[in-house]
């Protein structure tokens, strides 16, 4: 019986007008998205190759290990074809030098704002927005449509168990929406390989996980469509309810989650924090200057009654102590400002982290959000990508600096490009400009390795979202079953 019901479902959907149009639109969108994704990846790879080439050339032209600096480029990952995440919003490279902060600059969108206007529609977006809508279009009248046609009554006038009927509805809709998707998805995989995108074993595991996740997400919407169609009498009513649900789930809840989190767990903006630091800095400088002025007045008072020679001798005797004292106070003041800045930044990061966790938690009420989070985690393009890269670059900076310091000592190149000024004991200065300076061996410099996420890490990060999607889907399926058992077929 179950097989007969599924066969009928498949035939009913495949012969209907919705199927062919949906299939064609899905095929075009998936292939177009893959093609554009590969082009985008290749453009990012070219930019990366050019940037690293230039950096390596500059390093190889250096003749001294002193004051070494470099630039670290972020290698594009092929997974961005599937879920671009923040890849194009995050800077492509970071400067690497002793005193400079690690910051990823020059994102694709900041360099080419037009790309931000026409954002790249990745496969994740196609699944999250377009295919979920198609899943609803496929199922909104699965049960009440049959009631309207009169076929539900005729079918259930036979010894057809309702449980089998609703499960066959689900299975038939699932098979007729999901299985045909494998055709364009398979073609897109072949396209990625044919267009020369390098895919390692880990990428295939991630792609498989991404596809599995996407199918789970569509399963949720198929089950939801069947549940709502089994709760309502008319297909127009179920379509309206599902459309409102879709808009809320895909467009509203994720954004409301962010807004609510900002209200519940506010965090100051960077500008506000900068203003606070600036104010504190000014106060401390004013204090410092006031101290200097006070010290100067005390010293002036001490020379009162002295002759000019005595006063000069007094100043000569104490000059170094005063300078030392002044330097100590200045350093203390600057350390104080620095500590204050770090405290505020730490506090800001803590607040922002809490806000982010809350926003993620609230947005996860929407299955579309849970899908998006999991898809980005699997692709390694979620918001933690920034921290992951900055942390890796910071570590690399230490490694880079330690290495250059070591090489500086080893090669004796502790001068700037071999240029040095020597001051002899008699006060004469001697300038030395060495001839035939040899370039340093830049090939020995440790290379930056992009932070790879192993699959267990990816899995751990996406577990909560995958689990939520599983729970949502199971709950909706149970609800679809329970409501149909009591559905008035008349």
């Amino acid at each position, binding site marked *: 019986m179950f097989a007969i019901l599924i066969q009928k479902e498949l035939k009913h959907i495949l012969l209907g007008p919705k199927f062919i149009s949906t299939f064609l639109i899905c095929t075009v969108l998936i292939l177009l998205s893959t093609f554009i994704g590969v082009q985008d990846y290749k453009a990012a790879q070219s930019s990366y190759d050019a940037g690293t080439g230039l950096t390596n050339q500059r390093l190889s032209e250096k003749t001294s290990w002193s004051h070494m600096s470099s630039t670290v480029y972020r290698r594009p990952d092929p997974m961005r074809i599937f879920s671009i995440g923040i890849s194009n919003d995050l800077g492509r490279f970071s400067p690497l030098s002793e005193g400079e902060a690690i910051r990823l600059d020059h994102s694709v969108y900041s360099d080419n704002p037009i790309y931000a206007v026409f954002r790249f529609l990745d496969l994740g977006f196609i699944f999250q927005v377009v295919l979920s809508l198609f899943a609803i279009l496929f199922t909104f009248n699965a049960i009440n449509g049959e009631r309207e046609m009169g076929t539900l009554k005729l079918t259930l*006038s*036979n*010894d057809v168990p309702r449980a089998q009927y609703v499960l066959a509805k689900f299975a038939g809709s699932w098979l007729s929406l999901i299985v045909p998707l494998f055709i364009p998805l398979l073609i897109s995989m072949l396209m990625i390989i044919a267009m020369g995108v390098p895919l390692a074993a880990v990428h295939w595991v991630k792609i498989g996980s991404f596809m599995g996740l996407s199918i789970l997400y569509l399963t949720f919407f198929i089950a939801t469509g069947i549940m709502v169609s089994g709760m309502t009498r008319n297909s127009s009513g179920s379509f309206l309810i599902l459309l409102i649900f879709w808009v809320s789930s895909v467009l509203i809840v994720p954004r409301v989650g962010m807004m609510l989190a900002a209200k519940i767990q506010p965090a100051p903006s960077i500008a506000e924090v900068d203003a606070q630091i600036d104010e504190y800095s000014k106060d401390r400088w004013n204090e410092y200057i006031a101290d200097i002025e006070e010290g100067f007045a005390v010293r002036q008072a001490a020379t009162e009654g002295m002759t000019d020679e005595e006063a000069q001798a007094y100043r000569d005797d104490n000059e170094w102590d005063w300078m030392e004292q002044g330097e100590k106070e200045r350093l203390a003041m600057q350390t104080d400002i620095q500590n204050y800045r770090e405290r505020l930044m730490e506090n800001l990061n803590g607040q922002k982290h809490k806000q982010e966790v809350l926003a993620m938690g609230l947005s996860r009420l929407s299955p579309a959000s849970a899908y998006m989070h999991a898809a980005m985690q699997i692709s390694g393009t979620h918001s933690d990508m920034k921290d992951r890269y900055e942390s890796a670059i910071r570590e690399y900076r230490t490694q880079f600096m330690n290495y250059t310091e070591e090489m500086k000592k080893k090669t004796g190149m502790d001068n700037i490009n071999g240029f040095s000024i020597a001051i002899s004991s008699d006060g004469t200065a001697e300038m030395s400009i060495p001839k035939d300076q040899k370039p340093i061996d830049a090939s020995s410099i440790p290379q930056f390795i992009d932070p790879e996420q192993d699959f267990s890490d990816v899995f751990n990060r996406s577990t909560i979202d995958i689990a939520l999607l599983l729970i949502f889907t199971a709950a909706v399926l149970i609800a679809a079953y329970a409501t149909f058992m009591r559905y008035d077929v008349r």
Partner: protein
Amino acid sequence: MEHNSFPNTDIQPILEAENLSMRYEDGNLALDHVNFKVGPGEIFVLLGANGAGKTTTINLFLNFIEPTDGQALIDGIPTHKDPLAAKRKVAYVSENVMLYPHFTAIQNADYFARIGGQNHYTENDYRDVLRRVGLEDEAHHRKLKTFSKGMRQKCGIAIAILKNAPAILLDEPTSGLDPKAGHEFINLLHSLRDEGKAILMSTHDIFRAKTIADEVGIMNKGILVMKRTREELANENLEKLYIDYMTGNGTLGGGEDHD
């Protein structure tokens, strides 16, 4: 075939309403202790205006709703206690047969025959039954969306025949049929009766009720106010009886009245 006089009390009924009652959640009494029996080879027609309780009776036999009192039995099986077993014994034709518009007549017939437990039919079997109900060969492979209401109705009857169940329930099957199709339908129903099917049909068409029925029951406001056999009706005017019962002037006698 000359039909036996009805009711034959020696034969086990296939369809039986036993104090069948239905009160909706809003308190509205849709059916009030209705009793009747339909034996094999008999046609029982429920005659009544819209809202009289005819469709509710059929829905109770199909277990689409459960009775608040009494029971509907199909071949001795109470439909609300073992609906699946009861449904194996009954075929159903609705007032407005729609079927699957993108399936052909044969595809529709095949699907419903198979869920009715008949997996052995060949295409020729389907064609034979479709011809029997008056659907011409050229229509057999046409999609249902191109069919007229009469053609769909014939297809629905073909599906009921293909199930080969001992009982057939027909809910206003003749509404919207043209006179020729209506005549063909009456002949078909008589041939099914002659094959031994127990047929329960609801209608508000007095002429057809009289032509088709072995026994007619008039329903008014959920009450089966009158029953007359074909023989009894030979001496009475069904139209007058119907109007009398509808207007509250119905009298006892001349058969089994409100039970």
